[in-house]
């Protein structure tokens, strides 16, 4: 059930171990089925791609043409990067990127470090109170953090952290699901290696830092990417804890675009694409880790 087995499983289906091997034996009715399923899939995949492609097409159209409506946009063949250029020149987007980048990276770093440490204690160390602590962690999974937005705001207010990047970072660090994912991974690492290192005189921290963490690269990658994406996309928290326009993260900044840009549809869609661009690039690079991480957190979280 650890990420390692998930990796193995995934490889096997990418290479084609899925049920389609029955295809060799199926007759004409099977072939019809195959053809029908491909057609159904292609039709829906196109439906699923249309909104994104339409947004892309609009962002490459002149604002004046875009204001005329969908038909004009689809019939217009004169792509321009004007909307993207004006976004970059206006400068706000750089502040938003900076805010989203800083908060996402720092949160991912702290989450990975703290969650892996906690998970290591819960997985490997025997101490009084461990089972109770683990129970608390499991209970924590059920707490819907979004519903806590008002008290979290109050906490940050008391700590005078409102309108700082920390107000976005700190509340997102205790991701209980990350502890869970790390613990399941650590449970699967054979204890013998660690014991050998301990006999050689390494203490717990040295074992964790120089033996266990290097072995955990796949799960570290998965948790960091998932945390990064989660923080980058979070709207609710930064919307209420950041009111300084210079500190706004991408989703909060974009929320202002809708109302302030009016009929400049091409510019609006360019903003929508720019907000998503880093994530799309991330997805294309780390496709496997993202899908596995999302699946793992869904199945366990």
């Amino acid at each position: 059930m650890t990420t390692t087995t998930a990796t193995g499983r995934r490889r096997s289906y990418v290479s084609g171990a899925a049920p389609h091997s029955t295809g060799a034996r199926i007759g004409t009715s099977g072939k019809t089925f195959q053809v029908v399923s491909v057609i159904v899939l292609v039709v829906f995949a196109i439906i699923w791609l249309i909104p994104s492609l339409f947004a892309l097409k609009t962002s490459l159209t002149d604002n004046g043409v875009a204001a005329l409506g969908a038909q004009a946009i689809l019939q217009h063949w004169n792509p321009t990067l004007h909307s993207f250029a004006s976004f970059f020149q206006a400068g706000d987007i750089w502040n938003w990127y900076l805010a989203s980048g800083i908060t996402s990276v720092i949160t991912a770093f702290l989450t990975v470090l703290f969650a892996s440490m906690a998970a290591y204690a819960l997985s490997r160390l025997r101490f009084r109170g461990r089972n109770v602590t683990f129970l608390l962690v499991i209970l924590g999974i059920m707490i819907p953090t979004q519903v806590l937005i008002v008290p979290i705001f109050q906490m940050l207010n008391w700590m005078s952290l409102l309108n700082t990047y920390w107000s976005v970072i700190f509340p997102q660090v205790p991701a209980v699901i990350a502890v869970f994912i790390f613990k399941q991974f650590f449970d699967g690492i054979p204890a013998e290696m660690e014991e050998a290192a301990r006999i050689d005189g390494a203490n717990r921290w040295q074992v964790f830092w120089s033996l266990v963490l290097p072995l955990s690269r796949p799960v570290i990658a998965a948790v960091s990417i998932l945390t990064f994406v989660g923080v980058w996309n979070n709207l609710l928290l930064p919307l209420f804890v950041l009111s300084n326009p210079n500190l706004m993260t991408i989703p909060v900044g974009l929320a202002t675009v809708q109302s302030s840009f009016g009929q400049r549809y091409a510019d609006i869609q360019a903003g929508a694409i720019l907000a998503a661009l880093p994530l799309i690039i991330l997805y294309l690079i780390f496709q496997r880790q993202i899908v596995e991480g999302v699946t793992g957190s869904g199945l366990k979280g």
Partner: protein
Amino acid sequence: MTTAQAPAAALIKPRATRSASAPRSISPLRRGDGRSGWLFLAPFGVFYLVFLIGPTIYMIVASFFNTSLVHTDLGSFAGFANYAEMLTRPDFWSAMWHTLQFTIYTTPPLVIFAFVFAVLTNRLRHGQWFFRLAFFLPFILPSATISLIWVFVFTPATGLWAYLQQLLGMTPGNGILANPNTAMIGIAIATVWWTLGFNFVLYLAGLQDIPRELYEAAAVDGASNWAQIRHITLPLLGRTTTLVILLQIIASLKIFDQVYLMTSGGPGISTQVALGLVTGTAFTDNRVGAASAASVLLFIVIVAVAVIRQLFDRSAARREA
């Protein structure tokens, strides 16, 4: 800062345990586990207590007081007045109803489409990557991006949606989001498009756990593709389906982003949802106590579904073992 402290603490530890040598029958390698256990847990524990447990307790306490945003204290004691107010406010019940409405609109398509797409994709020999990209990519986009895209698609009269309606010979009305009766449907359509990928990959993972031999044996016995899906895939994905439905309900109860960005709860309050009511009461009306009472009620509903989910998981795991 914690990174710097922790190794130092760990270096002191072995000596400390040796001096307190009361070795019962624990292996020498286990000595000091207690102290390092808590040291390893401490950083996460602090954040867990301050930003998860603390706010939960504060929310419950504040729900019994007339707390406001301006004053740092709790304000005067209110007893159950905040709850009484919420439970008798029509806009509270309408927000709860809209949340339920959203759940009802989105869950069936999100489960059925994801199931069908996953089963069909899984049977493909080539090009699985393309369908995974098409169906999953929207899921990692920010809610702000998807909202801007769909508000634009739903632009009255000239938007892509209206254009398609015209092509199909329908008369586009004054916009799906502008009409109180259809606004939630518009939000639901955008949401299905956005989050289907999550269920899709969960189903694909579930499909990997079904042994290929089952299909092969069925094929030898002459079972058609349709029969294989109905009698093998469907029952064996039962656990995934229950999980997907419960996760969907939990996510729907917490809906906020799409509504805030696409309609801000409007027209009127026709798409106002529970979390929108909570944040509105706290940050616009400045009434933290009343907002906390609403939060507690929503909290209870969500935790109840989450508990069902955990119980289901555990019993399913036991059955498998």
